[in-house]
């Protein structure tokens, strides 16, 4: 765990060093330390003021946002995989992404100039679309008093397919805004601001605390809902809380950065392969690794064709997939989840 923390900081520092304008590693540290309210002044460091601006106003918020989005996606992925006992589950499995996409595309095409609390229409509609979808899916999956996870998964897939079709329809008529729509759907952290960080981080924290308090319950849920219930887990309540928490994480992530794939699917598997399925370790480790992975890939996305940049979703998949396959081959078998003995 400590190693993961170090890794996270290393990738964050690295991300702030690299870029179209290179700021030395030592200077990065100096700027950061001076920016802290500790009145530390490092004499003799000749740092161009523009570097300071680039670092504090552009790169730092972007790194923080990448960390928040990456860990939110990874944690939500871990929760959904555990809840559905399905290795294919990712943060978008029950339709939050398509709901958010529909909201975002709708906002882009209708050209709303709505702004609440400093936010444009796109993130607001994306957030609203995601949350509305999950509530719709949940109420559709209800059988009597209970919401069986399998029904939930299937309802999610159905709703997701339906909404995706609507998104495609809207995209088809997007005209000159097509580029904007496609770019949003690929996901990216360009134009990150401190304001976004201030809004995103509390959501991410709230969602994370919410789900991590129920790690032990989630472990029991891995044995099946009935077994969990026999062990004294109030399964319906726990499901509701976990869904709410992880939906919050995903909706917040999607609305700030678009649909970034692969992080939420791969990171939890990665951790499980190495450290086992116990969610008390899995959740924090996924958060750290997810944050690290997104910072690293986002850095690559910025520098690879600098001064222009690639959508980070492309990089996460390009790098994550081969790494994951390598790990699978090395361990031969997915021993957790249907892999047998």
């Amino acid at each position, binding site marked *: 765990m400590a190693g993961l923390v170090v890794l996270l900081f290393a990738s964050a520092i690295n991300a702030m060093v690299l870029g179209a304008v290179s700021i030395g590693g030592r200077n990065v540290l100096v700027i950061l330390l001076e920016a802290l309210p500790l009145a530390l002044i490092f004499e003799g460091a000749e740092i161009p003021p523009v570097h300071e601006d680039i670092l504090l106003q552009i790169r730092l918020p972007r790194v923080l946002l990448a960390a928040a989005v990456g860990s939110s996606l990874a944690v939500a992925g871990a929760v959904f995989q555990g809840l559905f006992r399905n290795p294919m589950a990712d943060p978008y499995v029950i339709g939050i992404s398509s709901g958010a996409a529909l909201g975002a595309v709708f906002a882009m095409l209708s050209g709303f100039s709505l702004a609440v609390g400093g936010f444009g229409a796109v993130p607001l509609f994306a957030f609203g679309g995601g949350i509305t979808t999950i509530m719709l899916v949940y109420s559709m999956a209800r059988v009597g*008093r209970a919401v069986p996870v399998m029904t939930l998964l299937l309802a999610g897939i159905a709703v997701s397919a339906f909404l995706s079709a609507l998104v495609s329809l809207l995209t088809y008529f997007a005209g000159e805004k097509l580029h904007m729509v496609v770019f949003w759907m690929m996901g990216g952290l360009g134009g990150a601001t401190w304001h976004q960080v201030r809004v995103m981080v509390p959501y991410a924290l709230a969602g994370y605390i919410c789900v991590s*308090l129920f790690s*032990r319950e989630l*472990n*029991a849920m*891995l*044995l*099946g809902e*009935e*077994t969990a*219930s*026999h*062990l*004294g*887990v*109030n399964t319906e309540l726990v499901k509701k809380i976990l869904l709410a928490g992880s939906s919050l994480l995903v909706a917040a992530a999607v609305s700030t950065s678009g649909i970034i794939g692969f992080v939420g699917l791969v990171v939890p598997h990665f951790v*499980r392969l190495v450290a*086992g*399925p*116990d969610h008390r370790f899995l959740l924090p480790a996924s958060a750290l690794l997810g944050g690290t992975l997104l910072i690293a890939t986002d850095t690559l996305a910025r520098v690879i064709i600098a001064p222009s940049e690639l959508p980070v979703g492309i990089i996460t998949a390009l790098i994550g997939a081969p790494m994951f396959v390598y790990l699978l081959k090395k361990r031969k078998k997915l*021993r*957790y*989840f*249907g*892999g*047998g*003995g």
Partner: protein
Amino acid sequence: MGLNIEVHGLKLAYDAQPVLEDTNFTVDRGDLVALLGANGAGKSTLLRCISRILKPNAGSILLEGQELDRLNSKEAARKMAVVPQETTADFDFTVEDIVMMGRFPYLSRFQKEDSKDREIVKRSMEMTGVSHLAERSIATLSGGEKQRVIMARAVCQQPEALLLDEPTANLDIGYQSMLLELATRLNREQKVTVIAAIHDINLAVHHFNRFILLSGGRVMAAGRAEAVITPENIRKSYGVPATTYRHPLHGVLQVSVVRGPNPEESHNDGPAVHVIGGGEEALPVLELLSQQGCRISVGPVSAQDSGCRFAHFHSLPVVIVPPFTSMNGALKEEHLQLMRDSDLVVVPPIPFGEGNLPLFEEVETALDEGKPVYIIDLEGADQRDYSGKARQMLEGLVKKGAIVMEAIEDLAAVVCPGGGLENE
């Protein structure tokens, strides 16, 4: 310890299909109860109601007189533990992790497992004999080992009642009795109330002392084995004819499903066969002839003999020798008459002693009168001969025309239509 469970007027329907209809029973503290009944009789459904997976449409379940609904999830899990038929465990939790989950109902949200919990986990694993597997991944265990781990988890829950839902359905006979033995031990040592849904009645009677027989969602019979496990109850609830008998070694009731005498279906068009003597050795012969549609007669046998029971069950003519007496003139005549009424006589591979040697006289008479006599397994007679004379007498019969057969199965060719009998 121990929990009193009352079930009153329980009703439950799946999609308007009633599964439980007005189910009532009481299980006292420290009872060891087997829940019997055919597939679909409602055993699992009833257990799932008690373990709060299903909510009944009507009726109530009381634990120590307290409504089950009143308990919260953790309170209920401290009172009752469940061992299901099968646990899907295809992820890398270690056995110790799984057993530790039994402590869940005792831990509050921010509480860590302490040394006391670990001690209980250790003892539970020792009791169920899975300590050596502690570090193994549950996914790598065999079905029997896995079920013992689940049992360890149930023990770790320190319940007052243990509910088992077909816990042995997928286990081999060794693990079956081992698992039920564990349940009885918990019952004996810690007075835990045990309710187990069991398919295998013959297994259940070895381990349980109270039985509840469900049929069509109702309690058909409840109480001791003798009151519940009767041919009549089995026929009504499982829809098959059955006989009960005492286990020869343990004396417990056992059930055997039989093709009973069914006058409409039976095709007693085969030859009439008289089978000499009885005993367990004669039973395969009787069963084979019965399946071939032969009209059978049996004797002489004693009243407690299994051949005699067979004859009574199928309403066959039989010569019965009263206990501690030998064949008198009237019985001999009766025996001869049965042989005369038959198309052939079979001497099964039965043991011979001084007591039954005289019956060779009657067989010889029948042979003299032209009745075909078949002797099965002449070569093996020496091992079954406690008189030292049987071999000689049997060979005497062969000299007079008795036919020797190597195995019981060869009889089928003789008695089947178009078989050896008509050709002679």
